[in-house]
């Protein structure tokens, strides 16, 4: 009996060793890399010139500044560069490895008939491979656009996200002029360059909003003595007044198809959300509630509106199904959530969130419900998300002055935009 027991044990051991064996022997060793680092990418941007002569705009400097500002790149300063290659054939990879560059951008320009043509390449330094070579053309005045285009292409290849360097920002400035406040609606490149005046007024201008094709702006102007909604074409500067109701006329927002505006009117008593069909000129009331409903914004599919309402006792963000008319509350954390904007993915909600008495910008993942406070400045307002969803702009205070600031949606990058004269408020990031 004991013997059989021993035999049994032996069998068991045999089984065990058989079971263990396949676990421990494999044909080819596989190593799983499950961790990494997330540092800014070191990139060299060699000067882009025309046969050694500098261009009217320093294109590579603009590219370098674009990428640096994204927070995801750390460009190598030009003074550290050991060589200035203009084509892939002229690159000595060793020169760039020494500098720690992971990527390199080279480019050369030809100038024919007033048109600049830039041939640029992105190279991987460590594997000595060319990722792409592309050509972009433009006139003298478009050199900045060419530079932003190069930035977009490089950003997309390295990060997998479309760049947003070719976009613009609309904003309102307020500064005293001859003892009176002077309001201006401005549009500039997202890097602050090429600032352009759209409208100047002695009365306040508010809530600029871009059309989806980025060719028009809608905004609220008090120039008639009470708030009215206008739209204006950027190319022609032609304006049109859309509303002239008693009471509040505010917070316009373009539908994704560009045919309607959502807006707030208080003509029927208290502020309610309406949509306005630009073709038929018809207003449709969308909310009916004794509480304040304001700041409407479309979901990317155009089927719902998100808006701020105090119907629950404190300002919170709600979602309204346009076809069904059903209303759903989206925010539950904190006693103040307002000024909602959705990123293009339709999933990331950004808003003004009061946290311990201070107003910060926060994001909420509408799928998981996670709320993250993104900013450390306070009195933050008017968040607006970049079309690529990687970053947002908002208005805040620096000292007593209103300034614009940017923060990445992962809160990893934060910076103030260059200071301007007077207060700057209500940024709106163009959709393109």
């Amino acid at each position: 009996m004991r013997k059989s027991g021993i035999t049994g044990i032996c069998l068991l051991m045999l089984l065990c060793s058989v079971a263990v064996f396949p676990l421990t022997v494999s044909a080819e060793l596989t190593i799983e890399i499950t961790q990494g680092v997330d540092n800014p990418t070191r990139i060299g941007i060699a000067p882009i010139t025309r046969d050694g002569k500098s261009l009217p705009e320093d294109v590579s400097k603009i590219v370098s500044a674009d990428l640096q500002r994204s927070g995801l790149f750390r460009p190598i300063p030009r003074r550290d560069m050991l060589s200035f290659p203009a084509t892939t054939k002229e690159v000595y990879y060793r020169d760039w490895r020494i500098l720690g560059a992971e990527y390199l951008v080279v480019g050369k320009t030809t100038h024919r008939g007033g048109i600049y043509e830039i041939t640029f390449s992105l190279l991987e330094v460590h594997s000595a491979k060319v990722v792409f070579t592309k050509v972009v053309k433009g006139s003298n005045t478009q050199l900045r656009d060419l530079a932003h285009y190069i930035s977009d292409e490089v950003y997309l290849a390295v990060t997998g996200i479309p760049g947003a360097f070719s976009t613009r920002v609309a904003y309102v400035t307020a500064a005293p002029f001859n003892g009176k406040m002077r309001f201006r609606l401005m549009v500039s490149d997202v890097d602050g360059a090429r600032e352009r005046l759209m409208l100047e007024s002695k009365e306040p201008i508010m809530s600029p909003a871009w059309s989806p094709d980025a060719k028009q702006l809608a905004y609220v102007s008090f120039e008639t003595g009470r708030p009215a909604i206008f739209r204006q074409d950027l190319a022609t500067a032609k304006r049109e007044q859309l509303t002239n109701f008693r009471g509040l006329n505010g917070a316009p927002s373009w539908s994704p198809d560009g045919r309607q505006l959502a807006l707030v009117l208080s003509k029927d008593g208290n502020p309610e959300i309406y949509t306005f069909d630009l073709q038929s000129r018809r207003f449709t009331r969308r909310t009916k509630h004794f509480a304040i409903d304001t700041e409407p914004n479309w979901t990317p599919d155009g089927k719902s509106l998100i808006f701020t309402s105090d119907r629950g006792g404190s300002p919170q963000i709600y979602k309204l199904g346009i076809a069904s008319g059903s209303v759903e509350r989206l925010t539950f954390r904190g006693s103040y959530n307002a000024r909602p904007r959705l990123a293009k993915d339709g999933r990331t909600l950004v808003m003004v969130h009061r946290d311990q008495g201070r107003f910060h910008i926060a994001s909420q993942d509408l799928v998981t419900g996670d709320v993250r406070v993104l900013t450390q400045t306070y009195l933050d307002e008017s968040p607006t998300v970049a079309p690529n969803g990687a970053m947002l702009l908002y208005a805040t205070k620096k000292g007593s002055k209103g300034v614009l600031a940017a923060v990445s949606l992962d809160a990893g990058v934060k910076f103030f935009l260059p200071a301007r004269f007077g207060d700057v408020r209500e940024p709106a990031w163009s959709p393109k």
Partner: protein
Amino acid sequence: MLASRFVSFSIAILVSLALHGFVIYLLVSHWGPEKSLRKAAPPKYVQAKLVQLEEKAKPKPKPKAKPKPKPKAKPKPKPKAKPKPKPKAKPKVKPKPKAKPKSKPKPEPKPEPDSQKMQQDLASALAAEEEFLAEEQAAENDEQLASSYSAYIFDRVAGNWNRPPSARRGMEVQLSIQLVPTGQLISVSIVKSSGNAAFDRSAEQAVHKAGRFEKLQELPPRVFEQYFRQLHLVFRPEDLRL
């Protein structure tokens, strides 16, 4: 008397069984591919050094030294390995009785070729069974060495892996890389793409940036050939927020 023998056997067997069970438990519960690689790292290095201990045996009179040192060297590594999650080592404990005498184990630097020679000498001097055991042991050591150096490769590559912001948990790219015994990288190729070019590129870059895995030079050639000439790397971020 016979009975008492059985009893003593059965105790030994029970102990052995318990150890096996423990080993199996460890394998089953802790043998996560990556975890074990990481964990195993430090002890393994120690072990790699222990292999060199066989050198010590050399000074001794050959005939005598041989039988002894061999068994000895082996048992040694085991006890050490034990504290760590190294499972295999246990069952092999058999040679232990033999091993005891020798224990000088100073972490000798790296006379790899020598040790190999030694091993050959020793092997010839040993009985067939011992030889067999030794082989098994060697295979086991090789494996432990391999997993120790896998951890080293993990660290080098992970430390150079700069994930793009479009990287998400759940993405995976598989690379096949070729190395030569100096540890120099010869080629990298994508076996299975993640579908995200930037993500794939970041993985390739990580390997290129690591470039050379010098420590692989310390490996006995057979271990290198078996495990490291051609390697499979799977990049699967698990520490991302999204």
